[in-house]
């Protein structure tokens, strides 16, 4: 089953309700690392697989680490992918491992030729092991390195050209990064090569005060902002009716609230005239 329309990120407080009521949700995305153990969690997911297309979204591969991909972790991801046979597998343009320590954050990369070479090698290795195309997501950034010489969308375009990977375009992250680091979010969207976009993410963000300066935090803890809805409409016009997904990770509300966000996205998809019609 291939995802179409707007799905939601599956979060543990909602699993029992979805299993019981099987609501109309176009597709579900899981965080890979939450399902690398055994027991009830993975068993629930195997039951949901029968009714919903599933996407596996990794947060721990650390594609941008200078010290090489953790082959043990890649193997666990490969086993999960083999077990779930998901529609998509995605990861992030970031790093989280240094000297073997896992820092539990999607940390920013200096967008340099060295980083591009590193990420290219790692994406190629992951695609080789999984035997399939990976989608790579743009992160939310709160700082920029002096050495960054390549703009983020160009970095992704080049990565896709070198590896054949796709891009998971998180429009909330585009907005957060551009606001925090100075730059036009619309120009970011316009610079990304449309044919490589395989999925779009939507989420809410917060605005914090950092030494008197507002800084946007990608906390996935509220509904999608008006500015991000506008950016989403622009992205659809440019990329076409790409399968989309709403994420909500902190202050998780009732399932119905998340589903309403996804339904709102479906209306934007339909209004854009690019929504793929589900085959009968």
């Amino acid at each position, binding site marked *: 089953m291939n995802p179409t329309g707007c799905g939601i990120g599956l979060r543990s407080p909602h699993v029992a309700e979805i299993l019981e009521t099987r609501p109309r949700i176009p597709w579900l995305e899981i965080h890979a690392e939450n399902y690398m153990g055994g027991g009830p969690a993975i068993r629930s997911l195997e039951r949901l697989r029968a009714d919903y297309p599933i996407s596996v979204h990794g947060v721990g591969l650390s594609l941008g680490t200078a010290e090489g991909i953790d082959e043990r972790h890649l193997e666990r991801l490969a086993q999960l992918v083999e077990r779930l046979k998901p529609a998509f597998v995605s990861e992030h343009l970031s790093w989280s491992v240094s000297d073997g320590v896992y820092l539990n954050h999607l940390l920013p990369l200096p967008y340099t030729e060295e980083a591009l070479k590193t990420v290219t090698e790692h994406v190629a290795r992951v695609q080789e092991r999984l035997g399939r195309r990976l989608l790579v997501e743009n992160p939310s950034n709160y700082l920029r390195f*002096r050495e960054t010489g390549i703009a983020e969308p160009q970095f992704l375009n080049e990565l896709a050209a070198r590896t054949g990977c796709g891009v998971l375009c998180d429009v909330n992250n585009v907005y957060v990064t551009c606001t925090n680091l100075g730059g036009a979010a619309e120009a970011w969207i316009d610079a990304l090569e449309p044919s490589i976009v395989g999925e779009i993410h939507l989420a809410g963000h917060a605005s914090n005060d950092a030494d008197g300066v507002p800084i946007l935090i990608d906390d996935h803890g509220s509904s999608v902002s008006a500015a991000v809805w506008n950016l989403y409409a622009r992205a659809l016009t440019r990329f076409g009716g790409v399968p989309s997904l709403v994420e909500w990770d902190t202050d998780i509300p009732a399932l119905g609230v998340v589903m309403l966000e996804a339904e709102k996205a479906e209306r934007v998809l339909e209004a854009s005239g690019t929504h793929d019609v589900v085959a009968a």
Partner: protein
Amino acid sequence: MSSLRDVQRAFRTALLEQDDRPLATEVLPDGLSASARVSVYRHHVLTSLTEALLSTFPVVCRLVDGRFFGWLADCYIRKHAPVTPCLLEYGGDLPSFIERFPACAALPWLADVARLEWAMNVAFHAPDMAPIGPARLAVTPAEELGALVLEFDPSVTYVASGWPIDAIWRANQPGDEQTSVDLDSGSVRLEVRRRDDDVLFRALPAGSFSFRRALAGGEPLGRAVDAALTADASLDLASEIRALLDEELLAA
């Protein structure tokens, strides 16, 4: 020009050792200081890992209160950052960290409560297993039984404590505000495991506990029998072995 590896080491130092200086020279200020920008990342790393520990050790948190737990977690994370992205496997060292943490010295039972919660976490995420029937034991010649190593249900952990950690755990479940625990009620020997989707624990007598703990630890049957009889010379071994099968503790 710093290599990618150097930049990432500087970032790690800034996050865990709170020294921003090596990283600050790499970062464009962009209207906000490098250290204010790095602190956004540090805040997320520490709070998200603290939340991961809290979800594994809710009773420990309740026993010391949230603010103390936050400080304890912060100290632990800086010394024992995760080495795997699977956070359901993070926190195995917390019980021994608590044992050595001077501020917890007045709560000598706290480390064992943490051991119980860790065992419950392991049980919840352990792989499913198919139990064996009596056939495997029956086909093993009698003279080889002593050397037989049995594979145990991977969800099982045996936890012994000089404190009534089972009663402490039960008295600190959500909604239970009134139960008092007699800390002098003595030691316990607990078997923690998952059955279907539920993680359970129960107290075992000394002989059964020693027998099962030895087997679960990979000791051959003969050595486990010795351990069991040392703990309880009158133990009925035939019924102990039958119980292993009846309770589906042995994996195929």
